[in-house]
Every structure is written in C-alpha cells, then in structure tokens.
C-alpha cells in the first residue's frame, strides 16, 4: 500500500475512482442477490435502474423534479439577491456590522429545520412555503461568505486608491467588489448546497409534490427502489451544481487577495 508522498495524477484518480464505483455497485448487487442483504434495505442497482427507466419514461418523475426545481430556483435566487448586498453592506460599513452581527449569529445558530412547521402554518403546503425555507437555508451562507470576502480585502489595495486621491465610493466599486467576487462565488456554491438541503427537508416534511415528496411517498409504500432513485437523483444534482460552480471559482481564483 502506497503512502501519500506523491501528488495524484489525473489518470490515477479516474482509474481508481471508476474501480471504486464499479466494485461497490457490483458488491451491492451481489450481496442482495446472494441473500446477504435484504432487498428492502437499499434495493438493488438493477431494480433502481429499471424503475428509473419506467418513471422517467412515463414522465411521472419529471413533474416532481420540476416542482423541486422551481422551489430551488426561486428561493436560491432570492437568497443571492438579498444575501450578497447585505453581506457587502455589513462588511463595508463597520457600524452596520456591529449593529447586526450578534443578531445574525444567533439566527445562524438556529437550525432552519426548526422553523419549517411555523412556515408551513403561515404559507401552507404549496410553493411559497418551500421557497421561504430554501431562502432561509441559503441566505446565511451567501451573506457570511460575501462578508468574509469584504473583510479579506488587502489593505494595500485600499491604500492605493486612497494614495491616489480616489473616493471611498470609487474604492468600493473598483477594489472591494472585484476583490470579493471569488468569495461571492464560493458563497453561491455553499448556498446552493444549503438550498438543496432546504428543498429536501421541506418537501419530506410538508409537501404534496416535488422530489422530496416523491421519496417520502414511495418510502411510505415500501417502494425502496423508487425512494433510492429519488435519493440518488438528489445526490447527483448536488454533485453537478457543486462541480459547475467550482469551475467558475477556479477561473476567478487569481482575484483573491494574496496578502493582507
């Protein structure tokens, strides 16, 4: 067994990754077929694949995916529209920071899930309540990362603007915003993950449509294969969103402040 003294090559990652994937899937199928593991526990890859073909084909699952997507998109967009400017304001104006930070820290420590029942009471079982949950889930992460970005601005960069006689507003436009962009992108990635968690939590608990509802519904009827399908789909979505935003993150990595 090798140790970690060489960096990984891409070829190694791909090869071993594939091996790992295939091995686990194979063992899984074999374990159930051979009677080592109950079918009702996690179903089997083959069965999951067949229900996937069925449900995607008949379009049953598409409706749920679309509902979840709507909730995600609206709530997440709202969290960006409110979270980023708020993060910028709190980071840039120390007075605003002092005023609000203790409160926001308290809000952050509250698990969002706990607010779902009251949100449902107020907004019902439909789209609105889910959008609120998604917004709350993502908002804080987006705001805090943006705030961290403003705080991380290299003092030297601000000095440059001041040295040449530029106004504070100019410094904000030409230094603060570009310097914070990498952090805003990170915030988007983390926020998207939280938003996804919000979608799932809200739909599992109180919904009549959506992929989370699909999972809880099929699980209630002991249809493990379909429940697993929904779970796997969420996992894949989470991976894809994360990777796509990561690409964007790397593109702007050079804009991060190198020193303070």
């Amino acid at each position: 067994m090798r140790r970690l003294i060489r960096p990984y090559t891409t070829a190694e990652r791909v090869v071993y990754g594939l091996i790992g994937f295939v091995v686990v899937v194979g063992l899984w199928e074999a374990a159930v077929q051979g009677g080592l593991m109950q079918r009702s526990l996690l179903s089997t890859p083959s069965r999951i694949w067949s229900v996937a073909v069925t449900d995607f084909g008949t379009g049953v699952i598409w409706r749920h995916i679309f509902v979840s997507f709507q909730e995600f998109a609206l709530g997440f967009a709202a969290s960006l529209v409110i979270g980023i400017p708020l993060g910028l304001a709190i980071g840039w104006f120390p007075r605003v920071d002092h005023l609000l930070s203790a409160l926001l820290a308290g809000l952050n420590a509250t698990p969002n899930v706990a607010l779902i029942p009251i949100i449902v009471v107020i907004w019902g079982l439909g789209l609105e309540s889910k959008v609120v949950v998604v917004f709350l889930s993502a908002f804080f992460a987006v705001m805090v990362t943006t705030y961290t970005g403003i705080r991380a601005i290299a003092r030297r960069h601000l000095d440059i603007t001041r040295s040449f006689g530029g106004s504070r507003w100019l410094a904000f436009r030409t230094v603060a915003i570009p310097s914070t962009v990498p952090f805003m992108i990170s915030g988007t990635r983390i926020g998207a993950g939280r938003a996804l968690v919000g979608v799932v939590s809200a739909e599992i608990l109180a919904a009549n449509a959506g992929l989370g509802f699909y999972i809880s519904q099929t699980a209630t009827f002991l249809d493990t294969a379909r429940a697993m399908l929904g779970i796997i789909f969420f996992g894949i979505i989470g991976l894809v969103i994360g990777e796509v935003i990561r690409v964007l993150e790397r593109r702007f990595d050079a804009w991060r402040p190198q020193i303070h």
Partner: protein
Amino acid sequence: MTAATYRVISARVRHQRDPLHRWYRRNEPTVLRVAGVVAFFVLWQVTSDVGMIDKFLFSSPRDILVAGAHEVTLPRFWNDVRVSGVELGAGTLISVVIAVPLGIAIGWYRRVSLAADPWLNFTNALPRAALVPLAVMWAGLGMEMKTLIVFLGGFFSVLLPTVDGVRTVERQFVDVARSFRGSDLLILRSIVLPGVVPFIVSGLRILVGRVLAGVIIAEFYAITEGLGVMIYRAANSADQADRMFFGILIFTLLGIVGYEAVGVLDRYFQRWRPALDTEEA
C-alpha cells in the same frame, strides 16, 4: 524662476473631547452590538403588544419567557429533553468515534482513498434529509431511527474532512521523517495525526449544525417524543407560538454552545496548525 506656491501638510489636530465623547469613541462597537440586540427584542415586544404583528404566529419575548418558565416545571418537558438529549449525544459520539479512525484509514491508503473518492463526494453532496424516509423504513419510528439520522449527519460531516486532512499532510514533513528512516507508524503518529486535527475540528463545526438539524427533522418526521416534537405540536396548535419559540430557543442555545465549544477546541489546537491551510468555511 517662477514663484512657486506651496501646499502645507499639517499634523493631526487633537480635539479635547469631553470624557463621555471619548468613552463612546473607544467603546462604540460594543455599544452598537448591545444596542442592536436590545433594539431587536424591544421592537419585537412592542409590535406584538400593539398588534402590528400577529401574536398567535410570532409571540413576543415576554410570552416566550413566561411559557419557558412554565415548561421547565413540567416532567413532560424533561422527558422530552432526555429523549432528544440521548439521541443527540449517542448519535454524535458514535459518529465521531467511527468516522475519525475510518477517515484516517481511508486517507492513509492511497488507492483506497482514490477509489472511495466518488462515493465520498456523492454522499457529501447528498442532503441527509433525503435519507429520513429510508431510515424510518429500516428502524421504525423510535429513538433508534432518530439516533441513526443524527449519526448519519455527524458521520459524514467528520469523515470527509478527516480523509482530506490525511491526504493533505505536508510532504516536507514526511520527507524529513523518511530521511531519518522513520517507520510508517512513526509518521502516522507524529505527523499525520497532529496534522489532521485541524481538519477534524473544522469538520466538528459543520457537525454541530448537522446533528441539531438531524434530530429536529427526524423528530418532525416521526412524531413521537422529544423537543422537536414539542416544537412541531406547538406550531400546529393555536396559541402555542410561545412554547414553539421556547423550543426553538433551546436549539439555538445548543447551537451557540456547540459552536463555542468547537471554537475553544480550534484555538487550543491552533499551535499545531501547519503553515498552509486548505480548509473551507
């Protein structure tokens, strides 16, 4: 020669302010912080009293405290605390105890960690809440299921950072140990283990949020006993918003305490931090 004009750069003028002014300038951050929090609660109380916000939905600070004072006298409340406490405590403890050694083992063996990579990334991207219905299928509606959800939340929060930490071990340190013919066990003990600690601590920070969310969502889903159930029932009853907020407040306090505890651990291990950090918020 032209008669040049000059600009004068003067020194700073120090105004003699009165003591109150000076004190305020020095302590402004704290004053604003306190003012912000106080203003929030006062505003809440006032808008509730004058009827601007719905008392049934939003309650008010005073009502919440009254309800809370009443709750802590009831044995039912303490039973709920015990149930949720056991679920949280047992689930978290077991998850950390299993995840750390497992993470170190996976990270240590190169091929294993590369092979496990897609699965680790997948389970990390998957919202754990999606597993709740499955967990109910496996373990029923009792404390075992809820402990399982807590366990799953904590386990994956710590596993990935641990694997990452082992993989990120500073090559230079390993090279030094090798040049002195250090055994693998020695490398493990003296370089990897201290190096992975900051990663574990950052994983713990994520764990706090995840286990609290886990216990709540599990209790919401299978409404039997526990503080989460208290919140759920209160939310769905008329005129019990104060009890609901009291329950939420308990979890908020748990969250604050949890993050503080991790902060203490973080500062304690600060001196072991390697020069290059690759952690993520």
